[in-house]
């Protein structure tokens, strides 16, 4: 059976670099950092006092009453989905809701709601706990709200695979269309956990950068001076559509989602496999699924989070699967690590790299690790032909997702 072709017809995002896709992409190409000091009082006691915070607050975009019943992660999902939907030119009235699906996940979910309502419970008792608490903190909340907004009836799903979530959502979206369950899928990831508890938890794992005095230099994938990831918040959403459905309505097509690979390490709950074995298998599956040759894939948007171990294992895995030719980049050097939204935001960067024939830069790569054997678009964006590109996302729990996008 031949697989139906799936294309990307809409993009939406709200990120530490901008309130939409265009401003985020401009900032990326300019090599700007979205990382800044946390000036909130609660940050003073933390070992980590930097993060990549949103440029545009949800309260600047959404109605006050709606925001009262949304966790921040849900609000970000609705904002990014609205942009992607508008961008796609789809019409709610003419699209059959039974052919519209949603796959939107989050790494951690409504933690901010959980913690805020626990404070209320402790201080004022159970009767003061908001009746909106459960729909705000449930991990499927962002997907469910997006599904409600666009009246999606083909199925609303919320995959959860830590930092691979956003990419996994796109992979399941591809699957939904290929298997005939939907013509259009709103897919992506959200995350909003810039709060002392998650930061303290990650910091206790010694996973985060403590370069508190120099926030813009803190996220430095592949650099010898890297000392952990920088937490970011935001959302990325793409509109996936069966190619003939998009063609029939004359939709503008950004790129083709050519293939996806999902594997698991079976190795450790948080440590990445030292040789990136599971990641390599995911890339191999995606390549086979795409039907493309390794030489077609000229660019890789790497997972590269700026942690000492993971960054180098991935480089070896990429080289083992694709060869020595791909030009790498790590956009987390600018956006920080958006956890469950990372794979979706980086898919958007990968798609726009293909459209504009340019690889966004990896900033702060001042002193490359000796094991960095592949070419990286360091410091400056690099114009080049990109027939196809791969986006890697790996998550705690040993989840590996590789997505391959290709010129339509």
């Amino acid at each position, binding site marked *: 059976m031949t697989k139906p072709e799936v294309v990307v017809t809409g993009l939406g995002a709200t990120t530490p670099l901008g309130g939409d896709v265009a401003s985020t992409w401009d900032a990326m190409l300019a090599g700007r950092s979205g990382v800044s000091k946390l000036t909130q009082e609660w940050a003073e006691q933390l070992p980590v006092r930097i993060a990549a915070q949103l440029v545009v607050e949800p309260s600047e975009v959404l*109605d*006050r*009453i709606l925001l*009262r*019943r949304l966790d921040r992660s849900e609000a970000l999902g609705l904002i990014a989905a609205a942009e992607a939907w508008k961008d796609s030119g789809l019409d709610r009235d003419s699209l059959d809701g039974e052919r519209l699906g949603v796959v939107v996940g989050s790494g951690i979910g409504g933690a901010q709601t959980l913690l805020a309502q626990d404070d209320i419970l402790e201080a004022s008792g159970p*009767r*003061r706990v*908001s*009746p*909106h608490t459960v729909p705000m903190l449930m991990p499927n909340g962002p997907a469910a709200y997006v599904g409600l907004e666009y009246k999606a009836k083909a199925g609303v799903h919320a995959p959860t695979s830590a930092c691979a979530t956003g990419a996994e959502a796109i992979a399941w979206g591809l699957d939904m269309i290929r298997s005939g369950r939907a013509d259009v899928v709103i897919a992506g990831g959200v995350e909003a956990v810039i709060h002392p508890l998650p930061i303290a938890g990650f910091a206790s794992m010694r996973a985060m950068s403590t370069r508190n005095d120099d926030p813009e230099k803190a996220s430095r994938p592949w650099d010898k001076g890297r000392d952990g990831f920088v937490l970011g918040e935001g959302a990325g959403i793409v509109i996936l559509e069966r190619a003939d459905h998009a063609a029939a309505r004359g939709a503008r097509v950004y790129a083709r989602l050519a293939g996806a690979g999902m594997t698991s390490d079976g190795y450790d709950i948080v440590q990445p496999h030292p040789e990136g074995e599971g990641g390599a298998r995911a890339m191999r599956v995606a390549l086979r699924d795409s039907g493309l040759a390794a030489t077609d894939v000229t660019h890789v948007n790497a997972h590269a989070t700026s942690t000492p171990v993971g960054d180098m294992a991935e480089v070896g895995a990429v080289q083992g699967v694709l060869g020595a030719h791909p030009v790498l980049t790590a956009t987390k050097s600018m956006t920080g690590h958006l956890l469950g939204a990372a794979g979706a935001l980086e898919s958007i960067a990968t798609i726009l790299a293909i459209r504009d024939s340019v690889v966004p830069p990896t900033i702060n790569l001042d002193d490359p690790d000796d094991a960095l054997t592949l070419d990286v678009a360091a410091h400056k964006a690099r114009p080049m032909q990109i027939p196809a590109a791969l986006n890697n996302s790996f998550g705690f729990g040993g989840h590996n997702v590789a997505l391959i996008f290709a010129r339509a």
Partner: protein
Amino acid sequence: MTKEEIVTGLAEILEEVAGVNPDDVSEEKSFTDDLDVDSLSMVEVVVAAEERFGVKIPDDEVQNLRTVGDAADFVLKQA
């Protein structure tokens, strides 16, 4: 506390919790049918009203409070 004062107080709560325009609030208006207050928001309204007027509104009673006037009468009785 007069009934008018209670209605004004309820209008302020409804604006804060559910975004209802205070000009739309009057005694004969139904919370659900006229003012679009859904069940979860109604819970918020009740808790806020208890706090503001210093009364207790048992859950069994809430279903009887169909209109703003019903709620104002109940508060008046308890106060």
